[in-house]
Structure formats: structure tokens, C-alpha cells
């Protein structure tokens, strides 16, 4: 059986999520399709993840591994949802097909593959897979509701420079 030399901690997903938000912040800053504050919003999300990581470290022996996995994976799911959301925004709202294709190939697909790879290393138990599926569904549902309730105003806010 192939085994990793170092076992992954649940906080690895938090760390991965922080990296994704940081990358999104820098990308949204250099892309002309977003208003200025969007990049800072992503950076704030990364900072929130860092605070979350610090709290997780302080309460390492009080929180169960399952609970730590749940909130860490939720954070990663939010980061992935943001990346996919940016991709949809480029296609649907800005009609920037070439940029969207480039973004999907260079950012969206690799991040999904990398996240899936690390989850497959960690998700030994069925309960972790079910929890991940549930959290992903909740994030997708939340994103869909946000788009459906007031899409024009939301899209307008995103795109204003």
C-alpha cells in the first residue's frame, strides 16, 4: 500500500483555501473586469482563513478531528466556489470568452484537481466524503440563491471600477 510520509491534518484544507483566496485577490487586482474592492474582499477572506488557522491551533486538543475537518473543508469549498464564480462571471456577465477559457484552464481546473487530489489522500472514511458532499452542496446552494435573488445588482457591483 502506498502511504504518505506525513499524514495530512484537516487544517491543510484551510491552508489550501487561504492560498486560493490570495491568488484570487492578486488575479482580480490585475484583471480589468472587477472593481477595486473585490481584490481586497478576497484578501480579507484569506486573512479570515489565517485567523481561523490560528484558532484551530489554539483549540487543537479541544476540537475533534471531524469538527476540524468540517470547518476547514467548508473554507476550501468557499474558495473553490469563488474561483468557479469568477469563471461564470467572466463568461456570463462580461462575455469575455477568451479570458474565461484561459482562467478555466490555468486556474479553475488545476485548483479543482489539486483539491480533489488532497481530499482523496485525506478522505479515508465515508463520513468525511459525505460531510464534504454536504458542505459543497450547501455552498453551491448559497451561491445559487445569491445569484438568483438579485443578480443584476450583484453583477453591477462586481464590475464597477
Amino acid at each position: 500500500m502506498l502511504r504518505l510520509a506525513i499524514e495530512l491534518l484537516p487544517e491543510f484544507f484551510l491552508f489550501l483555501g487561504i492560498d486560493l483566496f490570495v491568488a484570487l485577490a492578486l488575479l482580480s487586482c490585475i484583471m480589468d473586469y472587477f472593481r477595486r474592492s473585490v481584490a481586497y474582499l478576497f484578501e480579507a477572506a484569506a486573512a479570515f482563513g489565517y485567523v481561523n488557522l490560528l484558532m484551530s491551533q489554539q483549540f487543537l486538543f479541544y476540537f475533534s478531528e471531524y469538527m476540524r475537518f468540517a470547518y476547514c473543508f467548508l473554507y476550501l469549498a468557499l474558495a473553490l466556489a469563488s474561483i468557479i464564480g469568477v469563471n461564470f462571471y467572466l463568461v456570463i456577465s462580461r462575455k469575455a470568452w477568451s479570458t474565461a477559457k484561459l482562467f478555466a484552464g490555468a486556474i479553475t481546473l488545476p485548483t479543482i484537481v489539486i483539491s480533489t487530489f488532497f481530499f482523496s489522500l485525506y478522505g479515508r472514511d465515508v463520513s468525511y466524503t459525505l460531510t464534504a458532499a454536504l458542505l459543497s452542496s450547501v455552498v453551491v446552494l448559497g451561491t445559487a440563491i445569491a445569484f438568483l435573488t438579485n443578480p443584476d445588482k450583484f453583477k453591477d457591483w462586481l464590475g464597477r471600477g
Partner: protein
Amino acid sequence: MPNRRWLDFLILLLISVFIVSASAAVYYAMLSPSSATVKVAPVRFTTGNDSPGILTLGLNGTSASLTLDAYPNVTLYYDQAVNVTAIADKEIRLRPVSVSPSNNPSVSNFTSIVFWLIRTDTTQAGLLNYTTVGNTWNTPTATNYVPITTGETWTIKIEITAAPGALSGVSTNIVIAIDVR
């Protein structure tokens, strides 16, 4: 890209470098909070003068199993049932783990079983006194920690008293731990 955007990018880049490196440091710290190293046990069981025929030592002397006799209305002493040898300066104590059967009619065949921890100079370092009340064993509390120095060999003396008219073939199992700190 306008100058303002470059400035934003620079600010975000600096914050990003801080967040990512700090997160990596925190994660690395969480990854290796402790380590365990296998070492030779600083205190171990060794054979005493009365050990032949009654003592079975575990691997590396970290456990010992004693099979002792008892006779009705007689108090039997094993002056050196098993020895305890230290290869480092430590503190040790005797701690009761379990006694079985308890709350059983067979218990009344015994009166008491006493375990003495005796220093090299024959002074007493602690004792566990198991006594019976009807069908139940009274389990003693753990002894206080006492210092044992490198190279010292202490002994465990055992005193068994069976009740008058005790039945033949009745047995009891007592598990005791030696805590080392």
C-alpha cells in the same frame, strides 16, 4: 494598468506574502507538536531470591507475572517475590489496577494480600493492603511516589493470608502497576 492599480497590487502582494508565510508556519507547527522516542525502561523487574518457580518476567523486564500459593489459616510470606531495579534516578509508586473476581463468594476464602515495596536498606517505601469484607475485596489506594536512584534494587515482599477453612483450588487475580516518573 493605471498607477492606482499597481499600488493596489503591491499592497495586496505584501499582505499575501505575509498571510501565506504565516499560515505555512502555523501549519508546520501543528504538524510536529510532539515526537516519541523508544528508550530502555528506566525501571524494570528482576528476579529475587524467592522468584524461582513463581515468577515469569515479560520481555525487557517491563512486566512480571507471579503465581503464588496460599494455605488455609496460614500467613505465607514471599520476602523477595520480585525485585525492581532502576537504571536511572526516578520516582516510583505502586498503584492497584484491578482485582478479580470481586463481589463473589470465592473472595471470602482469602483474608488479606499485602504487597510491600522494600528499599535496599530494608526500610518500607510503600504498601498495598488488599483485605476482604465478606465477598468483596477492599482495594487500597496508590502509594506515594518515592525516589529510587540509579543502580538500586528494591524488592516486593508479599504476604498472603487465607481464611480458616478456605477451599482448595480457589484463586484470585490482582494486577498492580508500578508508575515511574
